[in-house]
């Protein structure tokens, strides 16, 4: 019953000084690999890098393994539909986080509607598996090389992609399980 009296081994977390802010990281990335970066925006304290889809795996791998950046944690991956008349129409956002340096960065890939393919990042972070399935399910983005790309939230025989802007809120017809 040692827990009752004195909890042992509380680990105090030190605040590691981040050598670079996310916007500096983005600038450094642009210097080193100019073809990986199409655009950098810093707004509301967050940095977004738009990456061409051919380079997204290389960019993620680089940001994860480079000692000064250490983005070893994929916090989130989500899609966004700009609307049927926009071109490029679809966005995929990657929210990166470092468990050691505690900084965050957003990568963004822009996709055309008729060619909504992007390489998977499941071999870099295994947690991407379900996020990519969700984005496929709700937006119809196809993640090439994904080990198990099935619908996750909606039924397997669902027609269409529910979070696209042209999908009506109440669907096309009542869904029946029978």
């Amino acid at each position: 019953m040692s827990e009752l009296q004195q909890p042992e081994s509380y680990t105090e977390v030190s605040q590691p000084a981040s050598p670079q802010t996310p916007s500096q990281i983005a600038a450094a990335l642009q210097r080193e690999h100019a073809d990986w970066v199409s655009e950098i925006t810093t707004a509301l304290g967050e940095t977004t890098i738009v990456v061409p889809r051919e380079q997204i795996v290389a960019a993620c791998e680089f940001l994860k393994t480079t000692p000064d950046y250490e983005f070893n944690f994929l916090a989130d991956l989500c899609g966004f539909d700009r609307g049927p008349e926009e071109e490029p129409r679809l966005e995929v956002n990657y929210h990166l986080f470092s468990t050691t340096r505690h900084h965050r960065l957003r990568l963004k890939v822009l996709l055309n509607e008729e060619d909504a393919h992007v390489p998977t990042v499941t071999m870099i972070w295994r947690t991407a598996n379900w996020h990519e399935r969700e984005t496929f399910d709700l937006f119809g983005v196809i993640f090439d090389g994904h080990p198990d790309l099935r619908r996750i939230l909606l039924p397997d025989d669902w027609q269409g992609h529910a979070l696209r802007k042209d999908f009506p809120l109440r669907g096309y017809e009542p869904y029946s399980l029978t």
Partner: protein
Amino acid sequence: MSTSVANIPPQVEIVDQPLDSQMTISMGPQHPSTHGVLRLELVLDGEMVVKATPDIGYLHTGMEKLFEYRKYQQGIVITDRMDYLNPLGNNLAYVMAVEKLLQIEIPERGQVIRVMMCELQRIASHLVWLGTHALDLGAMTVFFYTFREREKIMNLIEAASGGRLTPSYFRVGGLMMDLPAGFERRVQQFEDDFSKALDEFHKLVTGNRIFQKRTQGIGYVSAEDAIDLGLSGPSLRGSGIALDIRRANPYTGYETYDFDIPVEHDGDVWARYLVRMREMRESHKIVQQAVSRLKPGPVKADAPKVVLPDREAMKTHMDALIHHFLLVAEGVDVPPGEVYHPIEASKGELGVYIKSTGGPKPARVHFRGPSFVNLSALPHMSRGCMVADIVAIIGSLDIVLGEIDR
């Protein structure tokens, strides 16, 4: 051979040998230990789990779609219904993301009340986890004791907001209203009792040898795997990673509170149990500090185009009435932009991504629910364990299906 086999006509060939074949069974969605409507497809070899595949979506209600059709302030009530054991945490993540887009700060008293209510909610959430986790493992008594304590917190939340399970207490730019008179005394009363109750839970569960045997060495996940699988919150800290968003990316003034981050290094169900038990004591500490910091003052930001005016001002001031009308009829005009705001909810990192293209309605709201990501680690954790251990592992992940399916 027994008579039943002998009675089968000779043209029927028996290929299935019961002892050396694998069996696929469906666990749930109505199984009581799956904490909602989770279905697991278990491939079993005898009683050993070869593969567990979660099947989710039974509670999917299209909440993220619904956000796009509602004004920003109407979205708050949707967040309540996601992680229904930690609704104030969801409120906080959502309103803070909107506040970030609007670039407004809320006053000191509002921040302190937010911290206090969130930590009370964290304790309530952990109490439900403790009661149901022990219930899953066959200890029924604990459930009654934890719900007795949780009831006190529910009464406090009801006193402040009027709602118990769906408070919607935090609003964009502040709070729904100030705390009722005498609230500090009631919180203090709860705090005095809770320390004793926590000792009681330790006596009931921690020293219980059956509970230890059922949890130690079960559902192991190493530190590297935990990060790779995206685990967060107590599930990550049970694997030896001292990561807490309240420290890593502080919000609402958490950097000024004195609390420890409990860490265990075993990475099993038992370690995650100990982390949560200690977290309740830390939350208890934070609530006490917050109560001592409560000083009279405004709880809403001074932003008339965002925050609803007081009732009294509406009756006496023309401009307050106009602002009220415009806010209710047309909503808040949020400038274009995108934010991702993470907070430390009771189950892990709760991140809200909001994309605005201007106007009163968001273009996209995405919730990174900790339960969603933590559950995706279940196949990794449950490989090679027994069927009965699956229940212990699900309990240790502390999932809420409302947040997973959204």
